Structures are given as structure tokens and as C-alpha cells.
């Protein structure tokens, strides 16, 4: 376990992050400026995203919440580098994103583990193509570190079909982290899990985030999940997907799901979705 003191906080953005007293990695700033993203069908172009402007700070935990079909997954895929056909620019630490890279780890709704590899080999797959020139990274921890981190050391030699849904998703998280990403992108990672497992996985994810100090961008349609996890919640409207509002969640962790403040924020977010849409070009940050 690296100690918190050993990693220097960066000057940039540290002011805003100071309140959490959580020094961050050297990088992890995601700048999203998408003017338009559309899917072309045979007949016409369907707009999916329009005028998305968002900056995610190093070490920040941001949740994107929206109804299904609002383009939130597409937004995440753009940041992942899996979608490159759009108008605008997305960059990580000032470098423009043009394709997938190890510096952005992705976890999908399905675990997408390779069924012919053991848990250990699946996590090791995440280190594929790791040695990149020109990056002064510390020698990355081994596969065992990440298996420990997700609590699956004992299942290292198991195959994916022998794991439960929650365990598989943990392996997927370990695989995404094994490449030492600066940003972890999660696309409804717990949507397919049962309620109890989902709650436990949310706590696990927070623990992992605090241990690894990556920037996290998580897409979900579960408002409670977003309020429980996020520093900021980005609410999206549908067709085309636009940022409706950004909500800061200034609750100390661990958060009490049954608490009054928690309920207030959840209620506020919920109400936002059932109000008539008032698209705001520059979304003011509500408290």
C-alpha cells in the first residue's frame, strides 16, 4: 500500500480539492467539450449529444445520471476513446484523446472477462501494452496487488464462469486498474447486480477509489448510487443528450443513505428529472 504522504499533490486544481484533504495523482484532469455527436442511420443523422462542456478534476468522483437513451454511455465511450467520430474535443491532462489508452481504464455493465483466462490472467490482461515510453511512472504493482485490492486473492486461479456477478465485476475493476489508469470510467457497472451486492460494491468502489486515487467517471441511472458515490453529479436530459444541471454533493464520507441531507439531495435530483426541461447552455453549479 503506498502511503498518502509519498505522493505529492499537484499545484493545479489543488485549491478545489483541498476540502477533501485527498492529495491526488499527478494527472487525471478530463476536459470534455463536445459540440455535437450523432449516430448516422441510413436516412438521417440522429443527434445523441449536444453542447457538452465538463471538466473533471484530478481525483474527483463524478457521476453522470440520466434516463436510458440520453447518451450518457456514448459520452463515456467518447472519453474511453472507443467513439472518435464527433465534433469537439476531449482531452486528458491537456492531451487530446484520439483512441483507447491504458491511462483510461474502462469497466462495462457486463464484466467482459475473457472466459478462457483465469481471474489472475484476466487481471494481467489489463497490463497489456503497459510499458509506454516517456512516462515517469513508478514500477506498477503486480497483479496480486489488484486481486488483494478487490478482495479476490483466493480466487486467482478460478475461471470467470465460476464467479458470481459481483465477483466478476470486481475482477473487471481490477483489470481496469491494472493498467495504472489516471481515470477510471465505469458504465453502469452495478446495474446488473442485485440490490444487496450493489450496495456492497458501491462501498468497495469508494474504498478502491480512495486507495488508488484515480479520477472516476461513473455513468448510472440510479440516483441513490450517484448521491452515495459522487463529488459531483451531472444530470443529463435526453434527445439530444445535454447537461441539464450539475449538483455538488458536499456530504462527508461515509455517507448515511438514511440521513436527512442525503435524502434532500436525492429528492432534489429526482425532482430535476420531473421538471419541464429548461436547457441551460452554461449549467450553473448548484449547491
Amino acid at each position, binding site marked *: 500500500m503506498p502511503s498518502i504522504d509519498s505522493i505529492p499533490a499537484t499545484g493545479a486544481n489543488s485549491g478545489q480539492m483541498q476540502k477533501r484533504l485527498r492529495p491526488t495523482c499527478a494527472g487525471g484532469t478530463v476536459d470534455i467539450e463536445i459540440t455535437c455527436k450523432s449516430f448516422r442511420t441510413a436516412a438521417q443523422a440522429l443527434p445523441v449529444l449536444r453542447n457538452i462542456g465538463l471538466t473533471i478534476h484530478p481525483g474527483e468522483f463524478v457521476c453522470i445520471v440520466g434516463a436510458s437513451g440520453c447518451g450518457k454511455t456514448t459520452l463515456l465511450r467518447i472519453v*474511453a476513446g*472507443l467513439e472518435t467520430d464527433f465534433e469537439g474535443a476531449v482531452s486528458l491532462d491537456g492531451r487530446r484523446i484520439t*483512441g*483507447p*489508452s*491504458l491511462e483510461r481504464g*474502462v469497466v*462495462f455493465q*457486463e464484466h*467482459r472477462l*475473457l*472466459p*478462457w483466462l483465469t481471474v489472475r490472467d484476466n487481471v494481467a*490482461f*489489463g497490463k*497489456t*501494452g503497459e510499458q509506454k515510453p516517456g512516462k515517469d511512472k513508478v514500477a506498477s504493482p503486480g497483479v496480486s496487488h489488484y486481486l488483494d485490492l478487490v478482495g479476490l486473492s483466493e480466487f486467482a486461479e478460478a*475461471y470467470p*464462469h465460476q464467479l458470481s456477478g459481483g465477483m466478476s465485476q470486481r475482477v473487471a475493476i481490477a483489470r481496469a486498474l491494472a*493498467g495504472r489508469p489516471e481515470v477510471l470510467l465505469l458504465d453502469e457497472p452495478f446495474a446488473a447486480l442485485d440490490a444487496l451486492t450493489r450496495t456492497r460494491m458501491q462501498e468497495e468502489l469508494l474504498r478502491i477509489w480512495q486507495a488508488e486515487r484515480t479520477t472516476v467517471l461513473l455513468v448510472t441511472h440510479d440516483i441513490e448510487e450517484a448521491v452515495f458515490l459522487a463529488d459531483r453529479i451531472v444530470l443529463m436530459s435526453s434527445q439530444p443528450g445535454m447537461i441539464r444541471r450539475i449538483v455538488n454533493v458536499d456530504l462527508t464520507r461515509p455517507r448515511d443513505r438514511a440521513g436527512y441531507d442525503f435524502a434532500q439531495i436525492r429528492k432534489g435530483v429526482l425532482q430535476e428529472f420531473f421538471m419541464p426541461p429548461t436547457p441551460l447552455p452554461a449549467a450553473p453549479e448548484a449547491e
Partner: protein
Amino acid sequence: MSTPGQNSPVIWPTAAGTDRASAKVETTRFPFSEHVLGWVLPISLLLLWEILARVGYLPVNWLPAPTIVARTIYQLGVAGDLWKHLAITVIRVATGFLLGASAGTFLGALAGYHPLACKLLDPMLQAFRSVPSIAWVPLFLLWLGIEETSKVALISVGAFFPVYLNLSVAVRHVDSKLIEIGRLYRLSSFEMVRRIILPAVLPEYIVGLRSGLGLAWMFVVAAELLGASSGLGYLMVDGQMTGRAAIIIASVFLFAVCGKLSDWMMSAAGAKLLGHRAR
């Protein structure tokens, strides 16, 4: 801490012991009786056949007794004829299968991987597939002569199609979500094939190889029946010409044994390759 530690050795061994004991009873009893059941009919028929043949009800040049068939195989083995014929047949099957399966692997992978190659190749190959296998024989004899080449070519044709079909379909249907994982980790085309596509199609590929091998054994009979001076198929023709039913039945039996043995070897190799994964 200490209480469960002291208790558990007392509780668990007995529980596990009874579990294992009852499990053992079940696992030994059912497979045993199933095996016996499976053998009942064949052995009864063999006995009936033996008795009817011994009594003289079945003429010996029509259906000789199983013991006579066994003795024929033994005599052929001692004389050395059996090994010569067996070896040449096995070599034909092996060569033909290797050639056909290689071509099937190459073209199947190409047609599966590349949409353009599929559009180019698949319609033609599908058309060829609908030609009945034996229909090739006269043409191959005309082109390639009566020697080994025509036989090996016919066997290759047989082995080719199952391998081609299974592989091209499997490659085309590799889970695009896993392909995307490959993209995410920036695998090169070669790495993508080696680390994602190949392992993903392995089960279907092995099925293709197994049915290809089965067809290779079928086609070797056709090839050897229609013009050969050696091989198990020739032995059958010889038995027919000379009116020795025992030799024909012996050859049929040997074909069955060879086919089963090679299939078993292939499936064992496949099981080893597939390891512990479940599909």
C-alpha cells in the same frame, strides 16, 4: 475464536465423512448399472449371432460367426497383410485430413475475419459444398490418376468443408464485446487474433476438426472402394470379389475402430486445449 476452532474438527469430519460415503454409493452404483445396460443388447446380439451361425442357420459366406471374423483379423494380422492395408489407409486419411483441414482453417479464418473475403469466397464454396462427394470421383480419377493423389484429394475435400464452415461462422460470431476489450488494450491485428479470436473460436474449431476427421474416414472408403490395390477399402472389395464375408465384416469393424480411436484422440486433445473453461 478457540471454540469454533475446537468444535469444527469434531463436527466437520463426520459430516463430510457421511456425505462422501453416500456420494460414493451413488456415483459407483449408477454409472456401473448404466455401463452394464449399454452392453446388454450388443452382447446378446453377438451371442445370438454366434449361436445362429454355429447352428448353421446363417450360411458362412453370408454372415460368418463373430469368432470367425475375429480369427480372420488375427490371421490377417499374423500374415502382415492387415498392417500393410491399415497403414496405407491411415496415411491416406492423415494426409487428406491435414491438407483439407489446413485449407479449411486458412480460408475459414479469412472468410470469417474479412467481410470482403467472405463475400468473395463463401458463395462459391457453399455451391461446391452442395456437390455430392462421390460425384468428384470420376473427375479426380481423370485428372489425378488412379494413384494416391486422387484419393488424398477426395479425402481433403471431405475434411475441408466442416472445418471451413465451423471456423468461418465462429470467427464471424466472436462476441464483439470481447473484441472491444482487445481494442481497449490496443491489441494489434495479430495480437487480436492470437489473444481474443483464436481462444474464442477454439471450441467450434475443434468441433469442425472432429467432423472433418469423421468425413475423412467416410471418404477414404469411397476412394478405396472405387479403385485401389491396397487399404482397408480394397480389402473389402477383395472380400466381396472372393466371396469372403468375414473379411468384409472384419474391415467394417476395423474402420469403426480407427474412426472411433482417431475421434477420441482428437476430442482428448481438444479437451486438453480447452482446459477448465466452461462454454
